[in-house]
């Protein structure tokens, strides 16, 4: 069974998640703020940390900053009630392998944990939409930037299908590729999102400010 640490400042929500995950994963610890979360992760070295985005002590991103290099095997799955673009993109760029909102069902959450533990990325439809939006300007011909700042046409296709509510298996069938290939594309999108120069994303944010 996967070892999991739940980090959330609401005890009731932790209890709810714990009971939904019961039997499917092994919840080794819970934490309610950044220092306790860091301590719990370093003590238990879980495979996956379910990480609330809004957390006393500097937010979930702070936990990832403090822990990332000290527990390299641990992967983070953001779980938040906020679906504001700033939070979602910020958390992914902070190192999370996926982002799901708290309305996710129990089985879906277990599935997401499994996938993150296997080193894969988890994009909810909403997150895929944000990613497409964030990289939307990158197909301009005049704007020649390094490769990292773009999504390939195939990756955009995959993101689009995920945003439309397709599961990996269905994406694979739709595009006549293997599920493994879909996973590769998704991971590479995540990598670009986390590593790409801040230029495109900054411009995207600026565009949204202009609303």
């Amino acid at each position, binding site marked *: 069974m996967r070892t999991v640490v739940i980090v959330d400042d609401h005890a009731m929500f932790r209890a709810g998640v714990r009971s939904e995950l019961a039997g499917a994963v092994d919840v080794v610890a819970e934490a309610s703020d950044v220092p306790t979360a860091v301590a719990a992760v370093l003590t238990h070295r879980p495979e996956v940390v379910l990480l609330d985005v809004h957390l006393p002590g500097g937010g979930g991103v702070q936990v990832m900053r403090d822990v990332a290099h000290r527990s390299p095997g641990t992967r983070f799955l953001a779980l938040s009630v906020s679906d504001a673009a700033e939070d979602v993109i910020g958390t992914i760029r902070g190192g999370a392998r996926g982002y799901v909102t708290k309305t996710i069902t129990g089985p879906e959450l277990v599935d997401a944990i499994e996938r993150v533990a296997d080193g894969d990325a988890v994009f909810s*439809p909403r997150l895929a939409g944000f990613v497409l939006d964030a990289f939307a300007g990158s197909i301009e011909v005049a704007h020649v930037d390094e490769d990292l700042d773009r999504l390939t046409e195939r990756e955009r296709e995959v993101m689009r299908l995920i945003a439309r509510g397709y599961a990996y298996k269905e994406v694979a069938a739709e595009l006549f590729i293997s599920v493994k290939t879909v996973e590769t594309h998704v991971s590479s999108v995540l990598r670009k999102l986390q590593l790409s120069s801040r230029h495109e994303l900054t411009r995207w944010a600026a565009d949204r400010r202009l609303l």
Partner: protein
Amino acid sequence: MSSISPPRKAFRVPQESYLGGVCSGLALHLGIGATWVRVFFLLTGLFGFGVVFYLGLWITLPMAPAPVESPGLEAASRQGRRPGRPTALRDAGPHIAFVVVLLGVVGLVDGNGGPALLWPALFAVGGIAVLWRQADQAQRERWLDTTTRLDVRRLVVGSGGWAAYARLAAGLGLLVTALLLFAVQTGQLRVAQDIVVAATLGVAGLAVILGPWLVRLVADLGEERAARVRTQERADVAAHLHDSVLQTLALIQKNAADPGRVATLARAQERDLRSWMYGDARPDDVTVTSALQAAAAEVEDAHGVPVEVVVVGDSGGRVAVTEPVRAVLQAAREAMVNAARHAGAPVVDVYAEVVPAGERSGTLDVFVRDRGSGFDPDAVPADRLGVRHSILDRVTRHGGRAEVRSRPGHGTEVRLHVGDLELASRTDHPTTDQQQPTGGSRP
């Protein structure tokens, strides 16, 4: 036109600045590239006029206000639940550019045997510029500051950091250097000393005399502001909680025996609260996004099936809601209703993508997908006109494309497409079309 847009104000945009953000602000205001404005100021600056103009604008133009965040994000930031803003200096580029230009000008003029007072004057101007730059930084940080108290130290150095102190030291240092150079070059070190002493004494004397009043004034202002902000915020939040959460909880208590109704109520309330807390605060305009969200909300309330809407490329309502777009939106709504009513799916996914192709036209694609029972489209009897009429025909009539893909057991997806869209005119960046008289142009 019934709507009157407020007069446009020019701001400085220090976030994108090399010096004071005057050029980038002007560029935004005039709708031209910032580079051109900068070139203009550089060229005119050679004759002195541009420098004066620039400084005048720097002093008079207000700073662009900090962006307003949604209440949820603001609260989370205030309580330290979100990562703080990066405190490091953004990058040293602007300062390096500034120093290089300064040195370049000095070298140029000095090499040509300029007047003796040039160096001191340049240093003095540089010092003042750096000090003004720091004042901008402090003001900006005060805007982003989440505590509401005024604080003299914060007024000067903002949230501190070595960059703020470095700027202060550099600015003062440049001014003192200017003075010393002046003294050395004019050979009147004594005079310079006297000036420094006199100025220091004057400032200190003023501070001693006016200090108590100033401190009290600042404290009073801070407290008054804090109290006002607190009261207003509490009133707003209370009003919203009363209108939404309390009413819903009361309803849920009354309907406790009906799980379906409770789930619907809770879901509707969650949606409402979420958009209030984290959404973009522009619910009144009709855009592709708002129309789809409204339709999804209605379907959720009527049928109790969650509808997830994801819209890409429509930030700020980039596409005008014309007749073809409306047809697609109505068809999408119909597809949501069908999915919620017949498919028996736990959730309906709606994805819309706006692609502005070039400057004048674009495309809109909407996908409505469920993972419900599905059906065989070919087996639908010809007299059952629901899908054909309200979805397929409606969209094709307006020059779009519509397709229903479904298989028993694999759910249904409705794909809608329309092209040649007009871009919505943005009020903050008027195009040439807008400046022409609009009377009588409405159909």
